[in-house]
């Protein structure tokens, strides 16, 4: 009688065990949301050249970001390079124009971790609204990207 632990019969017994092990692991599906929904009804009420910053805030709420040139940093950069005694800076008022950004981000993830094969997929899209203002604080344009519907 063959009593060696690695004989064929013992190895055959391990096949179901290995098959089971190949299936061990996990599968995950995730949805991650970030930011508030953009109020589309309110977006329709915005009129170019008429609606003011205050009205936009009232209609759409607090923006996620207000983009504006950092005047302090701009001044500091100019000062750092200047070696004279007096420095006069003339700043274009256009630099003070603001952009309000509203964004609702969604990330879909799907992963499979098994014994030999791992697969991870993630897709991040966002509904993004940007409202551009002129120097008088009136809307000059709105950009709307409904990115989440691509998911």
């Amino acid at each position: 009688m063959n009593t060696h632990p690695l004989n064929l019969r013992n190895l055959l017994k391990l096949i179901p065990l290995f098959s089971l092990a190949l299936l061990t692991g996990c599968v995950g599906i995730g949805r991650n949301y970030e930011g508030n929904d953009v109020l589309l009804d309110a977006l329709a009420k915005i009129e170019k050249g008429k609606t003011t910053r205050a009205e936009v805030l009232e209609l759409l709420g607090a923006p996620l970001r207000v983009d504006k040139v950092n005047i302090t940093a701009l001044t500091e950069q100019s000062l750092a390079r200047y070696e004279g005694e007096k420095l006069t800076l003339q700043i274009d008022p256009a630099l003070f124009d603001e952009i309000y950004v509203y964004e609702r981000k969604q990330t879909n993830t799907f992963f499979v971790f098994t014994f030999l094969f791992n697969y991870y997929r993630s897709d991040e899209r966002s509904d993004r609204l940007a409202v551009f203002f002129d120097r008088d604080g009136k809307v000059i344009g709105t950009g709307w990207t409904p990115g989440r519907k691509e998911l």
Partner: protein
Amino acid sequence: MDARTQGTVSLFFQRNTALFLCLLFLPGCISVTMIRHRRGNEITPEKVAVIHSAESTLDDVLENLGAPIEYQRHTDGLILVYRTRAHNVAEYGIDVGRLVSWTDQGQTYSSLLNNLKFIYGNYATDEDRVVVIIGNDQLVKGIAYRGAINDLQKF
């Protein structure tokens, strides 16, 4: 189940329990890993083709391309940037640190074991990008488009 069969089954599990437990905790350690990561909203060449220098306005850009992801203010105008990034990975090998990291809450041992790995990997990252320069008269001064994701290696 008779006593003999029961004994055989019991012996089988006794002999293989350790092996089975090892196999159970091995996922992620010896592996083929594929990652597909995409970030950003789609930019279609058709929508970019509508925009022309010295003809299209800020409104046209916003209407066709939507809200940009980056902005830069300059004294002579505005630069709008749209981008979508994609990252594809295929890795083959052994990574003990990854296995330990699942149970190592403080990440102490997994960081020590980070060097104990053999990984052969293919990585590809690229992006579709549009840059639009808009003058203070709100007319497009220039536009550049680069579509690269479709040609990105998928391994």
